[in-house]
């Protein structure tokens, strides 16, 4: 069935958007900063994995793990060394700074790894599962897409458990809900925020590594994907973690459906922007997004 294939592809694409959107929302919830370098951090993570696996010759799983760890540490340092300095400055200063940081990452990556597309081997890359063979046709599922979905489910579950049940995870929630009160509890808020940047960077790196076999090759511009992921975060309510993943899924599935079922000309032009059409509609109907957490302070 073609529809199942399209849906699986859409869900997989949506999971990637959702994971990047998670990265946006984690940082936004903790600091009210919007990190427009999110996609470029993902790109750096992908190139780190590429360097380890394709150039240094590490096995895939080890290269991926080290790449994720490096990207996480990088996110931590980025906050501790750069973003922490402009706390208290107006919102636009943060936006411009992160956009600038993203540009720097892109051009540095272009200088180090070149602008040509690269790739690294994934053990399951290019594998397909064929089911339901009969006269009406068959369903061919890309293992890379299934791996994205599985990886996202596991990662989201792990993040949920971490934020819900560990002391530092609850402290992260506390810091993002009421920063001053968190300080008064003795929670080292600055360290906690850097840690959240680290988690956010590691999550986008995971998204990138899962994405790599699906798109086969990538170059330093792969981070532009994050613009669509940003729309996903807004659809979800920008501040809701389940909302971010759901927003990603909505956009991913719509894109694939538009791609497959709209007549020729329209498929090419509408599919890439279908996420933004949904964004417009959602903002008109529910300006706070689908899952906004709104808290009115009692007087």
């Amino acid at each position, binding site marked *: 069935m073609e529809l199942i294939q399209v849906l699986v592809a859409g869900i997989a694409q949506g999971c990637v958007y959702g994971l990047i959107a998670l990265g946006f929302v984690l940082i936004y919830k903790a600091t009210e900063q919007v990190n427009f370098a999110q996609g470029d951090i993902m790109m750096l993570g992908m190139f780190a994995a590429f360097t380890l696996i394709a150039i240094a010759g590490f096995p895939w799983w080890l290269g991926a793990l080290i790449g994720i760890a490096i990207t996480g540490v990088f996110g931590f340092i980025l906050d501790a060394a750069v973003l922490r300095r402009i706390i208290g400055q107006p919102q636009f200063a943060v936006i411009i700074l992160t956009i600038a940081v993203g540009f720097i990452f892109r051009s540095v990556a272009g200088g180090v790894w070149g602008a040509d597309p690269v790739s690294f081997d994934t053990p399951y890359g290019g594998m397909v599962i064929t089911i339901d063979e009969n006269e009406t046709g068959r369903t061919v599922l890309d293992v890379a897409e299934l791996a994205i979905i599985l990886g996202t489910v596991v990662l989201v579950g792990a993040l949920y458990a971490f934020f819900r049940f560990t*002391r530092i995870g*609850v*402290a992260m*929630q*506390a810091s993002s*809900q*009421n920063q*001053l*009160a*968190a*300080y*008064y*509890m*003795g*929670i*080292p*808020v*600055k360290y906690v925020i850097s840690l959240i940047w680290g988690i956010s960077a590691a999550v986008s790196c995971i998204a990138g590594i899962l994405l790599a076999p699906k798109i086969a090759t990538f170059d330093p511009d792969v981070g532009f994907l994050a613009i669509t992921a940003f729309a996903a975060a807004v659809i979800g309510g920008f501040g809701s973690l389940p909302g971010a993943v759901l927003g990603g899924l909505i956009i991913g599935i719509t894109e694939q459906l538009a791609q497959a079922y709209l007549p020729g000309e329209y498929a090419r032009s509408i599919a890439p922007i279908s996420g933004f059409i949904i964004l417009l509609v959602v903002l008109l109907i529910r300006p706070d997004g689908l899952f906004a*957490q709104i*808290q009115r*302070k*009692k*007087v």
Partner: protein
Amino acid sequence: MAESLPDSLLSVRNIETYYGPIMAIRGVSLDVPKGRIVTVLGANGAGKTTILKTISGVMDPQKGSVTFEGAEIQGRDPDWVARRGIAHVPEGREVFPFLTVRENLLMGAFARSDRAAVAEDLDMVYGYFPILKERAEQQAGYLSGGQQQMLVIARALMARPRLMLLDEPSLGLSPILVKEIFGIVRRLNEEQGVTMLLVEQNANMALQTANYGYVLELGRIVMDDECGRLLESDDIKEFYLGVKKDAVRGKKRWRRKKTWR
């Protein structure tokens, strides 16, 4: 410069704190002896909250020193000060709205690693505030104002602080709740031995609860004494307790001046 008293847990010496160019605290000194309740009274904008913020490290003084248990702590980060043993209960019931009541309380004990004792203390604060036990699994944002005030006091208690800074616990609460909360504050001081620095606009309640009081006006201490004597002072009676002496008939009210102006 006055030396700190020997039994003083916290001593503040000549602090000056600014909001940008505006000097909010103009050289305040005060002492909080161990095991006592000390109150700072003053009108809106007198600088009461700023004093507490300067002690807990949210604001840094330009001049002066804050000494806690013999060590200077001014200019440190607030989380460092909190881990040192000072629990600041800010005004306005700053709960973690999306965490449950129980999680809020456990966050109060964030800096502690003695799990068994933390569990005991949880029972202890549930004893003082039974309503929190009933609501333990509810999100704190859904509590009423009075319950949130109880939660923030209880949460601060979970840190086993040696000094508690209480900022306007009566703000916006009904008279009966105010009475209940001050009763508990007093019991905590007597039974748990928590030293308290209490900032209040409700002078009557504060003076009846505390042992020693300072009166703050426009960033300066203008008067300080045992609370019993402050309650008897004519100026305090007239300007903070709203008691007018009708007996002195004929005497024009405007001729009575505040002694410190």
